[in-house]
């Protein structure tokens, strides 16, 4: 009897916050009443190990039935039976305190299921966790001279990308194993990291990251660009490490860095285990539960699901794999049950390997999986946000490489288009840019999935499970009913349609009902949050946020108002010829551009400019205004918020907008004897200065930035948007669309009034009688 043989035992588990780990903990708590659990959990920056156990394990819906079964005693029982130790398998000595160390080594059984299961981890982190993790446990036990039964969870796919039977044998003894010195691999991985880091710091690379940051953020100001540059550098190193992992793994015949590091981990474990009795359990692709804790229970988004969902949404019609290929799927509860059975049976003198897989005894062909899925999606179509069902077409199969190439081509085309779009002065008006960004993101995701999982679709190894079945045969009837792990009982059609897909669509949050959503939309919710009386202030950018105009236009208007036709013509020619240069300068650095540009006001009579600006309100600003924007400013005032305009435009030019705002922060030009000098009084409010000035103003007025709302249109306004609790992207340029979408910011598309006059050139209408002109230069 399993529960009897484990009674009174102390079982330590690593990786308990994972999919398999959670299932294990739940199963042991429920079916093995008299044992104790020691969970080794890595604390995160936010949460201690104890807190993670509470939040990530015990509150998972895996425990729903146990909770209702135990009722009020649930917490108490868990407290009694579970001890938590704070540790990390990638740290020497597992990073345990003395107390925790004693507790951990006192275990009778240690189930090591901690791993980085991501197929695209950086080379070194896979090595540290998957290869060296088991080593460190063994080392610790050896140091303490204890010999608990160590069960290491590995994967069938350590056998690599080979055809034919893969049995429950040590890798060393099989033809699959290339002779690799795992120690050399560890050294090489660590060296690769430091080499790449060094390479990322050479001037050319740094320049490239700087350029990338500017492309992504525009003229967002130095601190933000610097932070982005560093982020890009780190990301580059990481990407290179991922690539290094993938290429090293495939060069040795493994599909990816996960299986490569797991395989080397097994080899190292066999070499180092010494007196410690070990068993290795190798599951194939772990999927949602067959029966326990509930049919279909799953944690996270796994393996084939993203591809299936992409297909159901009509985003993908080609599957990486061969129709007659076998996808070796095993429900998580069978894996957990097998591990518990291995623990109960106890170790042999020589390491034993148990494979938990379906391919050899109850194979599932790709074709069956996909056809069944398609049938199911025809009955339960996925609906798009408009409530229309998306049509799924016939599957096509491709060796994953063909598909990858195809996707690569599309992604490349998108990237080229994105570069062009980023440079065009188009905005989110038609939501075109936002749709574009969304599609691009989707593509990235799909491409990622195909890259990662494609190899599994092509894997043609058949995993033998003789030892596992022998263990199964040895069980009593009661054990068999409690701890089912015989893959032959799975009815795949039932599993796919009744168990797996219903959970997948919930996990993927796709809609399988046509109803339009009821209640307020996300935008409506965000909008009402923004206008909530609890907010303190609303800060507005001007250009392209409230009006579709810019400093050059208002300058041109003011400068030409009092010119005669010939002068106006010359002015127009001059300004047009300067435009490209001005534009470049503006793209490079807004502050610099404004300083340069505002020199043109040198010598302009202040009084006359003020009078002309009042007319400019009617003739330029209002015509180009976004009425919904002006309405929003007033809605904020009506809600009791302070309103502030923050703009690089000239204070004189925006003065007519004063009644809308409690405060205006604008560029100011010095004047002497009633004439402008062309020199700015302060740094113009752009980029990070804008954010600073806003915060200063807020603080002086006792307003909290986290209760502030900010409206802006461009990525160069990011510092200001990030400084408040409620950022709003208005008519965002492509770069900002992407950022706003990623961060879940409210996006508003405010149009100009249709019917507004469209003057060809922004030139002031010449008044017929007024004192003779004193033109601005």
């Amino acid at each position, binding site marked *: 009897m399993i529960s009897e043989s484990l009674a009174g035992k102390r079982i330590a588990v690593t990786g308990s916050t994972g999919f398999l780990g959670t299932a294990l903990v739940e199963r042991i708590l429920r079916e093995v009443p008299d044992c104790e659990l020691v969970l080794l959990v890595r604390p995160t920056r936010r949460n201690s190990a104890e807190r993670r156990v509470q939040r990530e394990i015990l509150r998972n819906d895996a425990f729903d039935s146990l909770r209702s079964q135990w009722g009020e005693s649930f917490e108490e029982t868990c407290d009694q039976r579970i001890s938590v130790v704070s540790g990390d398998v990638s740290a020497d000595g597992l990073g345990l305190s003395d107390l925790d160390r004693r507790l951990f080594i006192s275990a009778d059984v240690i189930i090591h299921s901690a791993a980085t299961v991501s197929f695209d981890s950086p080379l070194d982190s896979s090595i540290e966790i998957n290869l060296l993790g088991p080593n460190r446990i063994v080392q610790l036990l050896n140091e303490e001279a204890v010999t608990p039964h160590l069960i290491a969870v590995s994967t069938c796919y350590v056998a690599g990308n080979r055809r034919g039977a893969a049995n429950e044998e040590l890798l060393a003894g099989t033809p699959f194993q290339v002779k690799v010195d795992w120690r050399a691999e560890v050294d090489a991985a660590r060296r690769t990291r430091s080499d790449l880091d060094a390479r990322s710091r050479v001037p050319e690379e740094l320049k490239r990251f700087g350029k990338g940051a500017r492309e992504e953020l525009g003229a967002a100001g130095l601190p933000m660009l610097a932070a982005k540059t560093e982020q890009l550098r780190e990301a580059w190193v990481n990407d290179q490490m991922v690539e290094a992992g993938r290429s090293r793994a495939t060069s040795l015949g493994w599909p990816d860095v996960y299986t490569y590091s797991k395989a080397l981990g097994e080899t190292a474990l066999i070499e180092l285990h010494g007196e410690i009795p070990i068993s290795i359990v190798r599951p194939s692709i772990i999927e949602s539960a067959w029966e326990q804790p509930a049919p279909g229970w799953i944690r996270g988004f796994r393996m084939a699901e993203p591809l299936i969902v992409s297909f159901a949404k009509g985003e993908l019609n080609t599957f990486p794999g061969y129709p007659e290929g076998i996808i070796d799927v095993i429900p998580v509860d069978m894996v957990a049950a097998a591990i518990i059975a291995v623990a109960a049976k106890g170790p042999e003198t020589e390491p034993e390997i148990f494979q938990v897989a379906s391919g050899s005894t109850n194979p599932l062909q790709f074709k069956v999986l996909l056809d069944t899925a398609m049938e199911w999606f025809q009955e339960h179509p996925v609906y798009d946000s408009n409530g229309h069902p998306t049509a799924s077409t016939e599957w096509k199969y491709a060796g994953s490489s063909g598909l990858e190439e195809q996707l690569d081509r599309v992604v490349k085309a998108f990237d080229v288009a994105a570069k062009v779009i980023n440079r065009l002065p188009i905005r989110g008006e038609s939501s075109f840019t936002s749709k574009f960004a969304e599609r691009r993101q989707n593509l990235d995701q799909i491409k990622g999935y195909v890259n990662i999982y494609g190899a599994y679709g092509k894997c043609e190894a058949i995993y033998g499970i003789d030892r596992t079945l022998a263990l199964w045969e040895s069980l009593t009837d009661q054990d068999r009913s409690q701890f089912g792990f015989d893959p032959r009982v799975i009815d795949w059609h039932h599993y796919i349609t009744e168990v797996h897909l219903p959970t997948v669509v919930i996990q993927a949050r796709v809609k399988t009902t046509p109803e339009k959503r009821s209640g307020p939309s996300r935008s409506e919710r965000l909008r009402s949050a923004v206008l909530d009386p609890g907010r303190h202030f609303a800060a507005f950018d001007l250009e392209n946020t409230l009006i579709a105009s810019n400093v050059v236009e208002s300058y041109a208007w003011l400068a030409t108002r009092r010119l005669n036709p010939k002068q106006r013509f010359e002015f127009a020619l001059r300004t047009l010829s300067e435009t490209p240069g001005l534009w470049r300068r503006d793209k490079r650095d807004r502050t610099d551009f404004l300083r340069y540009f505002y020199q043109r006001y040198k010598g302009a009579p202040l009084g006359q400019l003020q009078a002309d600006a009042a007319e400019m309100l*009617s003739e330029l600003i*209002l015509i180009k205004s976004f009425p919904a924007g002006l309405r929003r400013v007033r809605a904020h005032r009506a809600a009791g918020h302070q309103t502030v305009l923050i703009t690089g435009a000239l204070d004189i030019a925006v003065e007519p907008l004063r009644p809308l705002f409690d405060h205006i922060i604008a560029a100011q030009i010095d004047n002497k004897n009633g004439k402008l000098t062309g020199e700015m009084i302060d740094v113009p409010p752009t980029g990070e200065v804008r954010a600073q000035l806003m915060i200063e103003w807020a603080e002086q007025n006792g307003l909290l930035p986290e209760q502030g709302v900010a409206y802006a249109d461009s990525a160069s306004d990011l510092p200001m948007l990030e400084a408040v609790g409620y950022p709003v992207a208005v008519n965002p340029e492509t770069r900002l669309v992407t950022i706003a979408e990623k961060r879940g910011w409210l996006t508003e598309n405010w149009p100009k009034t249709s019917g507004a006059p469209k003057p060809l050139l922004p030139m002031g209408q010449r008044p017929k009688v007024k004192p003779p002109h004193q033109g601005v230069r």
Partner: protein
Amino acid sequence: MPARQGLVLEVDRSTPPILFHHGEGFRFEKLPSGSRVIYPNEPVEPIEDVDSAIRDALANPLGDSPPLEALLQPGMKLTIAFDDISLPLPQMQAPDIRGRIIEQVLDLAANAGVDDVHLIAALALHRRMTEAELRHAVGDRVYDAFAPHGQLYNFDAEDPDGLSHLGETDHGEEVVISKRAVESDLIVYVNINLVSMDGGHKSVATGLSGYTALRHHHNVETMRRSRSFMDQENSELHTKNWRQGRLIRDAGVKIFQIETTLNNNTFPEPWDFLQKREWEMNAKERMFLFGTKKFLDKIPRKAARSIFQGIRAPFGLTSIQAGEVEAVHEVTTANVYRQHLVRVEGQTDILSMGLPYLGPYNVNSIMNPILVACLGLGYFFNLYKGKPLVREGGVVIMSHPTPQEFHPVHHPSYIDFFEEVLADSTDPEKIEHKYEKRYAEDEWYRHLYRTSYAYHGVHPFYMWYWCSHALEHVGEVIIVGGEERAVKRMGFRSATTMRDALEMATDVVGRDPSLTHIHNPPVLMADVV
């Protein structure tokens, strides 16, 4: 040759398609046999020697008023107020009658040694007039003599220091008018009385007043009790204006009223076919009309708009009278009726009208959807004496493209009214109760009204109230050729063709309804008996 009277044509099989105004364009509609088409009177013969007529009117005033000359003394304060850009429609060909009258008034004032003269565009809550518009109204000579010295300007109903509170009528209506006007020894008000509601006590009591006073009659209840507001004897609006006007008079404010009436010679060549009866057009005119229609249908609306807004009417002066307000207005009204009244027998199930490109509030601007509604259901619908042309529960079919377009400078509060208020409700009473005050007192609208060229924040409400009598009276409003989203927002239905509209109307008025079309403009007023 005396002008021909208007007529009510009964459509039969030989009747050619009828021309409908349709914004900046036209439609031709073949109306069902038995339908009636009401044509306006042809233009009344104008006065030939206008300057003499003006001189004569100023020298021989009506009522108990002395001649203007006798009212002018050295050292006095004189204020000349004049009607704003909303009159006449379209703007008249230069010289504008206002300018011609003002020149003579100024001559008399100069002769009498009057120095302190202010000229004020009496625009109440309308938008300020631009320099060009003021120049057109008063003439360059007057403009250049007064504007640079700040003596010619637009009235500002939101100037905190510019208004004078004269008291309340016995019905509790506040009376507030321009402080300059109150402090003047004499106000000379120069009117253009295009339709019968213009002029009289309304000139000063409304034209030089603001929200505080206007809200007493610019409201839903008053409009619903004015049947119609064009008919003085049955207009609550008129009654309230008169009460306010008499209070102004009794407060000692001296007004010398000058009123003028115009004939309905509205369209200059080559547009004069617009005031012809279809069957009387010759082949050349038909060709031109057809070509023009094709052309207008093809060009962008903005281009068509600027063509139409360039039209200046060749109106002829049909009468001018001056003196005491009420005596003057009585004669004026008779002259307006002489041009406008057309006798119509009995009501109709369906009233159709072709709405032109222009109403009082979109001169040099854009006819937005709210103004479309107001022109049809406010003005055209109310151009009746006796009873409405359409029976209670009947259908109004209007023809206008009704684009969802707004002038951002002239009509900012209309944009918000459309987006916010009409999105919530189209019920005039609910709108009045829930939103009016906020819009009327909105600081931004006030700023735009005072410093830019915006209609007052409350103005779109008045437009909607103007429709309230019609909205209460009719069972359905259909706009032929109207842009659906704008039409729907206002609670109306849009139809692609007249035939569709008639089909839709049968839901409300049953099979075989009677149909009457008013062929307006040129303006006509139906005397329904």
